[in-house]
């Protein structure tokens, strides 16, 4: 028996690791989404830096599959990504272009155009959310649409959803290990007593660290996540300049040994509260909830009523980001009447 679901049309802007992975999961789980959620996702357009492929009835799955395999799309129109967002009728824009922490572009323009056209937006792109949170939320509110960004913060752990589900509680602080690359490096230095450079090269060889790892190891990536949390959870109007940031490149194997002797390990911890926005290597008691190893991420949410709630999950990778994007998409579908 062929089942049918409510058609939800989406575009994927930025068809790299994350965007491609979102498409792949949509293909693979298509039947399940129809069966379990009654939703039939159709990808009506995709865009990368080279161009746009559009099909208003939904791009055929084997075409999407070939784009995914080639990590690149072939265009079938002269339309720009912005025109695709504005002019082709659809419900949700998935924005997964590269993060730019200076201007937020091209993602910022994509998201603004999408919200103005009354389309919901799900993004994995940290730039626009960290730089222009209030502005974007104001447009979304005015247009009665949602902007969701779970994938920008906690890898596979649903940190934003957790906090949204704590209604009635006041969140007083969030503290956590929010960068899987740094956590991997520190874990290896701790376990194998190897120098920082050695652990970094290992992480790069394994594809855990990027070839340019500076945003991770300088603590900037964690700082951006804190800014997003500061704005989204604490309504602080914070920017990167407000975060005190220290990275991990100075840490020595001897420091990890001394910490170990005293019953501690060292983690790159991000902490956000109304009083404090800080990224720094910190001593964490062995066995503490924040003592997670390898590429794992962890966050403890401090609340006034529920006390401390800690979640652990795989750190950011394309699959984890795609998982977060999908769950945001389904949240939109289940909370909104889509046209």
């Amino acid at each position, binding site marked *: 028996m062929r089942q049918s679901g409510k058609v939800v049309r989406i575009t994927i802007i930025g068809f790299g690791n994350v965007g491609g992975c979102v498409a792949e999961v949509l293909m693979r789980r298509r039947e399940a989404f129809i069966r379990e959620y009654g939703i039939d996702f159709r990808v009506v357009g995709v865009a990368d830096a080279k161009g746009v492929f559009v099909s208003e009835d939904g791009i055929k799955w084997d075409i999407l599959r070939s784009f995914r395999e080639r990590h690149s799309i072939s265009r079938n129109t002269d339309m720009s990504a912005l025109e695709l967002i504005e002019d082709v009728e659809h419900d949700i824009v998935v924005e997964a272009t590269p993060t730019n922490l200076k201007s937020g572009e091209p993602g910022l323009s994509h998201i603004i155009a999408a919200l103005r056209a009354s389309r919901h937006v799900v993004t994995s792109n940290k730039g626009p959310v960290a730089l222009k949170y209030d502005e974007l939320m104001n447009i979304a509110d005015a247009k009665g649409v949602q902007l969701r960004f779970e994938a920008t913060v906690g890898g596979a752990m649903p940190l934003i959803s957790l906090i949204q589900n704590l209604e009635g509680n006041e969140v007083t602080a969030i503290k956590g290990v929010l960068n899987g690359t740094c956590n991997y490096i520190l874990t290896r230095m701790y376990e194998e007593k190897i120098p920082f450079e050695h652990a970094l090269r290992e992480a790069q060889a394994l594809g855990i660290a990027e070839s340019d790892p500076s945003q991770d190891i300088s603590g900037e990536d964690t700082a951006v996540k804190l800014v997003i949390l500061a704005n989204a959870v604490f309504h602080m109007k914070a920017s990167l300049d407000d975060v005190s940031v220290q990275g991990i490149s100075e*840490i020595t194997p001897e*420091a990890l040994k*001394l*910490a170990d002797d005293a019953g501690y390990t*060292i983690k790159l911890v991000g902490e956000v509260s109304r009083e404090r926005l800080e990224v720094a290597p910190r001593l964490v008691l062995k066995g503490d909830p924040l003592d997670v190893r390898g590429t794992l991420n962890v966050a403890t949410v401090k609340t006034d009523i529920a006390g401390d709630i800690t979640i652990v999950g795989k750190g950011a990778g394309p699959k984890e980001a795609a998982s977060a994007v999908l769950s945001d998409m389904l949240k939109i579908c289940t909370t909104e009447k889509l046209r």
Partner: protein
Amino acid sequence: MRAMKISLDIELKDIPGQLVHALKPISELGGNIISVLHHHNRKTPLGNIPVQVVFEIDERNVETLVQRLKRRGVSVLRVGRERLRSSKIVILIGHIVHSDIRDLIDSIDSTGFAEVVKLSLEMPAIDMKSSASLTISAVNEDKLNEAMEILGDVARKKGIMMISPI
């Protein structure tokens, strides 16, 4: 409660019941007696016996206690405050040559309310960065945090990285 360890030297007359009489105000004020030491071998020329009592008590009750003891005719020779109750470890990384580590320790020890009670140093090679762990104790949690801030400032000025517990 800001618990503080006190060692109290008193002199008691060598007659039964004196010790109980002297210890009563301590328990009345919520103190926890840890040890009582009679120096029978060191009788004073007037025939009194020196006794040392070590106990824990809220620091705000110490003055009242001494007054009550005196009112009971107990002669108080010395009130030793073992003040350092809260401690924390920090790790420092940098070119910590001897003079620098001395300055760091002095910055804490000179406060009067905190001191460095333990130091471990790892120096892998002459021109490489050293790592150190310092245990700092202070009279209470607030002062401990104050001491940590002082240390943080000095470390920052010297370009030394400081890693503190969450």
